[in-house]
């Protein structure tokens, strides 16, 4: 027999490392032809950090996206990054990239004062050029600026760093107030429970995220889709210790350790929520990548309860655990 149920859950997730003190640096170098190298220390693990940081750099500096090359993960040339994790790269590296771009803009403006015979504050860097405020005819393209600055003795490299202050837990109260932007999510899950086999099929997921400003909708969707699938695996199937604590039957391959595939994708919808004020992230962005795997989990467990009246306390909610709980509740398999 198949029974349907609905469940909900709400979550919050902080950006960055526990207790702060996790630095990120960025460098932007203006080249002879006006194109730029963006150097960061974070790693593109698939989440798309290079793409996002390039967008942030292009926006801040006012240059075309394709004029920026991103180089990451070479410890000889790359700047420092505490690590690509804890949902921190868009936020911490992003802020460092903004600082580097602003630094480069400042250098360009200061260098250009002589050329235009105005104060640095009267110059603006935008649209791939430096120009005199209020006099758009007086400008130099980035190609000219890059050529001249480099050949005439300057080294146009913008540097930026960002590091939230470090804090330790208070020994007695555990007080810890260093928590960077907190993102939010909520989920409604609809499941179908087969009371004969204990199989739970997730039919529909609706999710809402509050992540500050979204930098790249394509990558946000990828994080939500992908995180959701990892969350589904966690909820219903994945367990390295199925006979915990015994090591018996520990899975060692993808035949026994089952991660979700295309057939496990439920009908999914999302929306994002906009708040009137934004925090300290780049353009108001919050870190949220990790959180994408949370929302379905408790919503599914709640939905199982709604469908067949049982609570599962040990996860994943495997068919066997569901059947055992049904049997304990006096519902034999059918």
């Amino acid at each position, binding site marked *: 027999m198949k029974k349907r149920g*609905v469940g*909900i859950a709400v979550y919050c997730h902080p950006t960055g490392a526990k207790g702060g003190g996790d630095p990120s640096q960025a460098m932007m170098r203006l080249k002879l032809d006006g194109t730029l190298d963006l150097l960061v220390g974070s790693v593109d693990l698939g989440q798309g950090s290079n793409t996002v940081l390039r967008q942030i750099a292009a926006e801040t500096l006012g240059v075309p996206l394709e004029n920026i090359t991103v180089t990451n993960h070479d410890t000889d040339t790359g700047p420092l990054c505490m690590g690509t994790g804890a949902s921190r790269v868009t936020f911490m590296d992003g802020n460092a990239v903004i600082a580097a771009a602003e630094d480069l803009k400042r250098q360009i403006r200061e260098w250009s004062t002589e050329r235009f015979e105005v104060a640095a504050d009267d110059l603006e860097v935008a649209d791939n050029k430096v120009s005199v405020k209020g006099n758009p005819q007086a400008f130099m393209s980035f190609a000219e600026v890059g050529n001249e600055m480099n050949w005439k003795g300057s080294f146009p490299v913008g540097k930026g760093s960002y590091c939230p202050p470090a804090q330790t837990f208070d020994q007695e109260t555990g007080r810890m107030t260093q928590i960077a932007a907190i993102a939010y999510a909520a989920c409604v899950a609809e499941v179908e429970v087969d009371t004969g086999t204990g199989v739970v099929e997730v039919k529909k997921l609706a999710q809402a995220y509050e992540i500050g400003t979204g930098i790249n909708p394509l990558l946000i969707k990828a994080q939500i889709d992908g995180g959701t699938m990892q969350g589904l695996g966690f909820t219903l199937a994945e367990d*390295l210790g199925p006979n*915990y604590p015994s090591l018996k039957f520990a899975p060692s391959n993808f035949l026994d350790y089952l991660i979700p595939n295309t057939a496990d994708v439920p009908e999914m919808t*999302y*929306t994002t929520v906009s708040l009137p004020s934004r925090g300290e992230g780049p353009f108001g962005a919050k870190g949220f990548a990790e959180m994408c795997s949370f929302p379905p989990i408790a919503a599914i467990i709640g939905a199982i309860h709604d469908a067949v009246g049982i609570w599962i306390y040990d996860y994943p909610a495997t068919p066997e655990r569901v059947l055992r709980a049904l049997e304990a509740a006096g519902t034999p398999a059918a």
Partner: protein
Amino acid sequence: MPRNEGTTARPARHEIRKPESAVNVQTETAYKYIGKPTPRYDGIAQVTGTNAYVDDIRLPGMLTVKVLRAPVLKANLLNVDVSGAARVRGVAAVISAKDVPGGYYGMYGDQPVLADREIRYKGQVIAAVAAVDQDAALEAVEQIKLDLEELPAVLDPEEAMKPDTPKVRPEGNIWSFDGGPFRKVRLGDVDRGFAEADHIVEGTYTTPMQEQSPMETSCSVAMVESGDQLVIRSLSQSPYLHLRQLSNVLKLPMNKMRLVGGNTGGAFGGRFEIHTDHVAGLLALKTRKPVKWRWTREEETLYSTHRGRWKFYFKDGVKKDGRIVARYVRTLHDTGAYTGMGPYCVEKNAMMVAGPFNIPNIAIDGYCVFTNRTPSGAMRGFGVMAGQVCEEIQMHRMAEILGMDPWEIRFVNAWREGDMTATGKVVDNVGAIECMQAVAKLAGIDLPERLKAMSSREKRG
């Protein structure tokens, strides 16, 4: 999905969904690039198969690595005899603990590269071979002889906490936070809160060990360049932390090492620990040849760090109207045989385990316990995920016990601007209520007007 037998009828085609329509992301029109669905920077390289992953690197004279792993959970390692292995044709180098020049690796610096005197978990690496090909390397590994004295192992964290249980590590089976056995968080007065409560709701939950399962298994290519610089093509998601750890293990200054990477076939936290860089580096230094060590899927699944297992005991004091007035959480994290990221996870868990809810009285005891399991590590949302999941299920159960709608209890307690986390952080830019309202709308659930009208910006009166 069973196929339709003997019929060629096809269900109607799905409507083609455009990429931008499926997710409604708030975008700012003022920006040129921010908020725009820009395709991936490396997207063309990915779809043409031209972006090189570490295993795609082939260098002239490159050696292959295979290792001997511990056959038991816990043992004294009396002797490792590699002489037979070194004699196998095609073997360039065999290393064991005595060949490691420096100290330990890991976020808390307690893990030996190659097991030295003791084995703490099954699969721990004891010795490594670099050879001309996989078959020679495997044959050599078979020739390594071990002299072991097997010892009783501990697998269950509750068991591990008992005083007479064998010690996983000399310092004991419980991590010390500020000299105490657990990370202590105290907000308000929980005892008074429980006394005020109309109901006490308890619940115990466990979450599994989850493997990050990146599609690319751990892999390093190490070589010595420019005479004396060790270059490692790495999957690391924290190259600088790893550079520091490698510097300690290899006794090389940081300018004599260079980690190169940036193209990783998935990580999800699994690349926060060094898995292959250290051994590949040691063998490259020893042989002065390029060396590749790639794990099999079996090694990745069984012996890489994973999301550690958690156990949570919740005790909530709640009023009839749904207000939670006190919450006690005892968390137990099985960090495995070495520290890994265990204490970090327990502390981060303590920060968020009470969820996005305003609870005036909170007590949390967070334990990090050692067992003879593969060390745990980081995985997506490490520390936060397991705790909040169980917390949300506890919320659901509490609503049931109160005879309250599961939405209602969350709205009643959800953070407002100016509310406080368990560790005393005053929150701003709060969006829990707004997310619930939005998701209800999306799912076609008509919430009561009262809940629809709520806002995180209305401070708690």
